[in-house]
Structures are given as structure tokens and as C-alpha cells.
């Protein structure tokens, strides 16, 4: 397995109403040195999951009470980033396709090969880590952006669109010198060392 060398971070959350399947899945995760926690229902999981804990979710589509789809929607509404791997029984392929359309990272049919599932788990954990870093970066950049005055935001917007100081000064009806001062403040507050970098930061905010 190619990804086994990188030590993945995060916990694998297993949600399945079938106790033996849950137990076996936990053991499989453990055998791959992954941290795992298992829950017998969507509700039990939601009750104990703090929305910022890194990891991924292995979820049986078909469960009594809240089913896999409903759990996914609930997670979305809580803004939780957990990638979901749906595991499905035999007749559930159309359901699984639907799951993919609605943002599941993957689905896998029971019974599965350990490599297949573990590959997907590693992908999901890697994706979660990446998304987490991005979100963190976005948070920081947004916080910086919020320190700009309304006029500085206008200037920044016009700068990243590629406008020259002269054009900006005309647009805003101020002197070119004033634009230069705003521009320097923007660069400083945003922590950008070049226009290219500022454009990049603006892109993060827009996400």
C-alpha cells in the first residue's frame, strides 16, 4: 500500500448498527495502526462528535433511525468537514451512486477487500487534513482582510483586478498619491510581499 508510509492523522469514525460488522471494522482499522471509534447509530455519533475533530467517517447507508444520508446532511449543516466513505450492501448501488453525487468521498460494497477499504480511508484522512489546513488558512486571511477599512478594501479589490494606480485614482476620485498610501497599507495588513501574493490571498477569501 503506497500511502501506508505516511502516518495519517485523525480518527476513523465507524457508524454501523450491526455490532459484529462494527467490531470487525474497528479491528481492521486498528490492524492498520489507525485510531478508531465506533458508534451504533448516527445519533450516538452526533452526540459525541465535536465538529472540529480531524478524521473520516465510515458509514453504513442503511440504518434504522437516522440513515447515512441524513447524517451526512446533518454534518454539512454543522459545517463539519469529515469525508464520508459509505459502505453498502448488495442491492444498494443506486443509493451509493446517489451518495457520490451528494458528496460522499467514496462507496464500497460489503464484503470488501481490506486494501480497498484502507486505501479509501487513507485518501479520506489525507483529504480531511488538506481541507482542514485550507480552512485554517482561509480563517487567517479572512481575519486579516477584516482589519481593512472600507476604502482599503475597495483599493485591494481594484488592485487584484490588475488596475494601475492611475486608473484606481480616477475610479475613486482621489489622488494617485492617496491610492499609493492605501495600497501600501493593504499590503502591510494582508501580509503580502507582492501583488501576485495579494491576488492569491484574495482568491482564498473568495472561496
Amino acid at each position, binding site marked *: 500500500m503506497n500511502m501506508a508510509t505516511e502516518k495519517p492523522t485523525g480518527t476513523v469514525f465507524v457508524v454501523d448498527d450491526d455490532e459484529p460488522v462494527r467490531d470487525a471494522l474497528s*479491528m*481492521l482499522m486498528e490492524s492498520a495502526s489507525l485510531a478508531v471509534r465506533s458508534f451504533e447509530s448516527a445519533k450516538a455519533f452526533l452526540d459525541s462528535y465535536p465538529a472540529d475533530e480531524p478524521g473520516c467517517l465510515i458509514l453504513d447507508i442503511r440504518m434504522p433511525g437516522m440513515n447515512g444520508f441524513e447524517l451526512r446532511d446533518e454534518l454539512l449543516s454543522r459545517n463539519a468537514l469529515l469525508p464520508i466513505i459509505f459502505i453498502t450492501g*448488495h442491492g444498494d448501488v443506486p443509493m451509493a451512486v446517489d451518495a457520490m453525487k451528494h458528496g460522499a468521498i467514496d462507496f464500497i460494497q460489503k464484503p470488501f477487500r481490506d486494501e480497498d477499504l484502507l486505501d479509501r480511508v487513507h485518501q479520506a484522512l489525507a483529504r480531511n487534513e488538506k481541507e482542514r489546513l485550507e480552512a485554517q488558512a482561509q480563517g487567517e486571511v479572512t481575519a486579516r482582510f477584516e482589519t481593512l477599512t472600507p476604502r482599503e478594501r475597495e483599493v485591494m479589490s481594484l488592485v487584484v483586478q490588475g488596475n494601475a494606480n492611475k486608473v484606481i485614482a480616477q475610479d475613486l476620485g482621489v489622488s494617485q498619491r492617496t491610492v499609493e498610501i492605501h495600497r501600501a497599507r493593504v499590503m502591510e495588513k494582508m501580509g503580502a510581499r507582492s501583488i501576485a501574493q495579494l491576488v492569491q490571498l484574495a482568491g482564498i477569501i473568495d472561496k
Partner: protein
Amino acid sequence: MFTNDDSSPDQHGEAGFQALLDAAVDAIVVIDCRGHIETFNRSAEKLFGYSAEEIRGSNVSMLMPQPYRREHDGYLARYLETGEARIIGIGREASGQRKDGTVFPMELSVGEFRDSKTVRFVGIVRDITERKETERLIRQQQERLEHVMRLGTLGEMAAGIAHEINQPLTAISTYAQAARRLIDSGLMEDDRLLEVLEKTGAQAERAGAIIRRIRNLARKRPAQRERHDIARVVDEALRLAEVDARLHDVNLSGTAEPDLPPAWVDAVQIQQVVLNLVRNAMETTPPSTSIMVETLCRSEEEVIIRVCDDGPGLDEDLISEIFNPFFTTKTHGTGMGLSISRSIVTSHGGRLEAKNRPDGGATFSVILPTAMNEHEHGN
């Protein structure tokens, strides 16, 4: 009766009596108090293959197969002594044996007549081979129909059953793969390995139990009634129905009163009825509602299996029709489920009733006689 003839009482009476006997469609046999044959009419000759001449004076028990042949003298003696009748004045189905040794089913009624000295018995025998054969064919057709319906039910449940077997298979394969990994990496302790092997075995058992239940229901077999704990019979059916309940997201629960009296039933047939009622309920009940199956006992004589749902209930105008063959409200229904269920329950001497619940939903009640008087149902 012929002795009242004025012209020639004795002679004419005797001949007239013989003519009457010989004209009878049924076989008529008269015996004395020790069981010896005195009169054997023409129909009796035809039916049993003996001539009146050759059989006169023989013990009537030779017209019966074992074990009745052996026991008949005893019956006769006991009746004469105690007046305790087995057949006399009752009439019943029995077996006869012809001269060539063949055995046939017959309807037998016995009367007695006395003069001052002694008592005689007259037996009237009708061959019911044909009637029995017709009954057997009807029963066979019925059993075939029931079997086809059971297979149909299982077919409809196939997706759920596949899912249900897939669960233990998934657990087994995952346990095995996890164990192999742990062994490879030297992390598997002996105790843990033993535990995993036990769990794996238990999952194989679980899959086996599902298959056993299905095979039991799918098997083609003649109806066979035995003394059964009805709560267990119902429980088996519910375990199969659970498969569907999960697919329909219906909460299926079963309760049984403790110490129910046993019932004299064909377990598979009763399971078929319960499965049919529960699946009907599931199709009309909206998701996330409940179906309750209660097994209880109202008196020593009756056990009741009650299937209650939270669905829309039955259309009051149609309640009288739902048990009719081919009546259905489903788009894919055959309309045979309830009809067959009722005929199964009726053949057990019970009743199948449908009612709306006061607080919504429908209740179907299977009312079965208990096995308190099982000798009446047996044989």
C-alpha cells in the same frame, strides 16, 4: 317390519328382507354378540371379495386390517360388559381389508338390535376411496398453492435476505483480514486470536441460521401438524420478517405472554400466515412507524397471534372482501395472501379476523385452538 305382512309372514318376510339387503348400495354385515358374521349382503360380497357363503360364521375382524383386527374382539367384549361404545351409534371413518389383502378407507356406522336371548350388531359400510382421493387431491393442490405463495414471498424478500446474509459475511471477511494483518505485524496475542476465531464462528452460525429459516420455508413438504410452542413459531417468522422491516425502516417488535399453552399446528404454515400479515402491514405502514406482534392466550382453549400496525387502517367497506381470493389493493399483489392465510387458519380449526384499531391502524388476529384436546385433532 316385514313380519307384519299378513299373507305369509315368515316366508315372504325372509325373502323380502334378503331382497332389501341385496338391493342396498352399501355393504351390510350382521354379526352376533361374539363377532361372528351372520348376514353378508351382495354389496358386501362385491366390496370385500368374499361370498356370503364362505364368510358366514367367520369373525368380522377378518374384514379389518391390523391393528383393528387384533383389537376388535376386545372392543366387542368391553361394549357388552360396560356399554362403552367406540363406534356404535356414532359412525366414523375406518379401514377395511379385502380378501386380496388390499386396504381401503370406509365410512362405517353400526347399530345394535336385541331379542329376548341375544344382541346382534349391524354394520353398514361405504367405500369412500374416491372421496378420500378427491380430498387428497384438493389438499395437495392447496399445499402446492401455499408452497408457491411461500416461494413468492421469499422472492419478494430476496433483496433483504441478501443484505441480511451479507452482514455476517462482511464481519467474517473483515475479522479474517484484520487478524491476518495483526499476525503479520506481530501484534496478535493468542488470547485475542482465540476471541476473533470465536467471533468469526458465531458470524458463520448467524448466516447459517438465516439460510436455515429460508430453506425451511422454501421446502416443498406435506403439511404436518405437531405440538408446538406457538410463541417460538411466531418468533421464527418474525426473525425472517425483520429482514424486510429493516428495508422498510419499520420498527417490528414481538411480545409473547409467558407459559402459553401449546398448539397443534403445522409450524411452517403458521409462519407463512404471520409473515404474510406482517409484510402486508409493512406495505401499508409509513416509514419509522411500528408493527407489534403479540402472542397471547384468552382462555385455555385459544391462543391468539395479533398483528397490529400504525398504518391507515382498513377501508371499512372492504373489510368483508379482503379475504376473498384475488382481492388486492396493491399494484403488484396477487390477492392470494390473505385468502390462503385464512384457509390455513381455518384448516387448523381456527379463525382469522381483521379489525381497525380505535386509535388508527389495523389489527389481524389469528385465533388457534390449543393442543389441550389434541387427540381430537390428531390422526
